[in-house]
């Protein structure tokens, strides 16, 4: 594999668990340095498995992964001190205080200077808003407090890359906003942030790039703007004559038409269409139009279009 400037790069990365479950299949992922990269996919699509391979926790069945330009898991000792991670939620020593938890995790890093340890732990706690609860036993922490402490562990050192698996899970709205602000701030300092999440508007708000997984395969990756644009906009017409409106719109190539009381919604055709002409056609056919316009496609629309509507988890 060529060495590139990417923060994360995988080639044909594949993991088959011991039970035979193919969790990740031939993943080619490139996370540019300095990006805030959203990693999307339905439950069980292989996001956590990918992150485990990147962090050297599990051995890939085949393929290769590079983190900050160095091969994993071979270079774990030199790479991982520069990477902060939150993997599948926080894990804490419930009999230790929040501060002691961080002291222990920091002690496990052979590149961490013991002289600055208490100061770094204190500033990490402050950064996630746990300064006041630092002396409390972790077993007395709420879900969101545990999540914050997990984040603090990822921020014990200045990092080049942050890998965050569902970082806002369990956080209150203020917590989510703070995490978003924190991610932006870190990105502003030059840290690459790789985060998986199910909250698409959150991804849309903070990420510059995104990739979508489904059933272990990468469906697409690119900038968030490209992804949202790839899903066509939707047309919405409000009218007291929905039946006629549907007929006219169908004639002009609008598909997936749905009527909700006085509102008709549909997908615009691939070929560009002058919306003013469409509106004129409706009026010409005697359809009384009360409101007319397109709704911008959201990342959620793009996500559902790519991964399907089905609710059931793929086995």
């Amino acid at each position, binding site marked *: 594999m060529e060495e590139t400037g990417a923060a994360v790069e995988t080639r044909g990365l594949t993991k088959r668990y011991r039970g035979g479950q193919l969790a990740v299949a031939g993943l080619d992922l490139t996370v540019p340095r300095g990006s805030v990269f959203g990693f999307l996919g339905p439950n069980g699509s292989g996001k956590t498995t990918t992150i485990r391979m990147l962090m050297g926790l599990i051995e890939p069945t085949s393929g290769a992964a590079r983190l900050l330009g160095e091969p994993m898991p071979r270079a774990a000792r030199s790479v991982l001190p520069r990477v902060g991670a939150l993997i599948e939620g926080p*894990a804490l*020593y419930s*009999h230790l205080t929040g501060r002691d938890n961080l002291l222990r995790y920091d002690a*496990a890093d052979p*590149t961490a*200077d013991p002289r600055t340890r208490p100061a770094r732990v204190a500033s990490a706690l402050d950064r996630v808003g746990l300064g006041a609860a630092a002396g409390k036993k972790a077993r007395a922490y709420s879900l969101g407090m545990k999540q914050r402490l997990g984040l603090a562990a990822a921020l014990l050192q200045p990092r080049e890359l942050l890998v965050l698996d569902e970082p806002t899970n369990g956080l209150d709205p203020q917590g989510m906003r703070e995490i978003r602000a924190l991610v932006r701030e870190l990105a502003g300092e*030059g840290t690459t942030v790789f985060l998986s999440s199910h909250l698409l508007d959150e991804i*849309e708000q903070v990420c*510059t790039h995104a990739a979508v997984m489904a059933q272990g395969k990468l469906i697409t990756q690119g900038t968030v703007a490209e992804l949202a644009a790839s899903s066509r906009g939707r047309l919405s017409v409000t009218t007291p004559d929905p039946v006629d409106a549907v007929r006219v719109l169908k004639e002009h190539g609008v598909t997936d038409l749905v009527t909700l009381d006085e509102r008709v919604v549909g997908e615009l055709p691939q070929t560009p269409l002058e919306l003013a002409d469409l509106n004129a056609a409706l009026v010409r056919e005697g359809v009384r139009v009360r409101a007319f316009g397109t709704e911008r496609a959201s990342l959620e629309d793009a996500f559902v279009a790519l991964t399907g509507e089905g609710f059931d988890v793929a086995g």
Partner: protein
Amino acid sequence: MSRAETGAPAAPVAAVRPSRPLWTLALFRSELTTTFRRWRTLALLGVLAAVPVLIGIAVKIETSDGGTVGQGGGGGEGEAPAFFSQITNNGIFLVFAALAATLPVFLPMAIGVIAGDSIAGEASSGTLRYLLVAPAGRIRLLLAKFTAVMAFCLVATLAVAVSGLATGALLFPLGDVTLISGTTVSFGDGLVRALGVAAVVALSLVGIATLGVFISTLTNSGIAAMATTVGLVITAQILDTIPQLHGIHPYLFPHYWLSFADLLRAPVYWDDLVKNLELQGLYAAVFGSAAWARFTAKDITA
């Protein structure tokens, strides 16, 4: 897309930090403090320290009418010397009696709990993955775990010995020590021998401790690893008493445990002591390698 495009150059925010040999020791210290600050560890040590107190009080009550303790062996093994009958003459024998009483069951059970939980407990709480991405390094983490378990073997033995000495000094007279071989040595010499006995008992636990750490790398359930290790202690003890299996007896880790009494002879009878240490070393080598092979290749999914 409310976020502005990342035009900022990706300046390296974190310089590559070298690891310092001395800094890598922090994990060992953290491991020791984490182990010994747990309530469970302290409770186990408390129970072990209570055993000599109970024995001392029982002996005191039984002999308060001027009688002597019945000729009872310590530890159930026929070859175990009758330290108990000597306690009333000399309190230091409470150390030997207590070690002989706790070595077959209590001590190895306590070790089984700590060793069995060492890796598996971290796996079941999920903290293992964060230690590994810190990155603790798998070999270094395993060594830190071994160190903490060995330290517990020593502290647990000392808890019994020191509590035995204190109780013995409080309840019974102290003085020159009559050894098993009949010779009498000074109390100071007796104390040195007691220290030697404690060291040998602690080393006798190395086999089960290593076995426990190995079992701990096999599962993600701390409870299962503890139960398996303690189960193996009991199984080995039972097998060691079945005469038909004498062929395998020399390879069972508890087989030479009570050889520590040979330190209380003049001259010291080294044969079984050496065999015991060799056997413990063999267990440490075999199961230490197995734990290393297993843990360095293991998928950490918990």
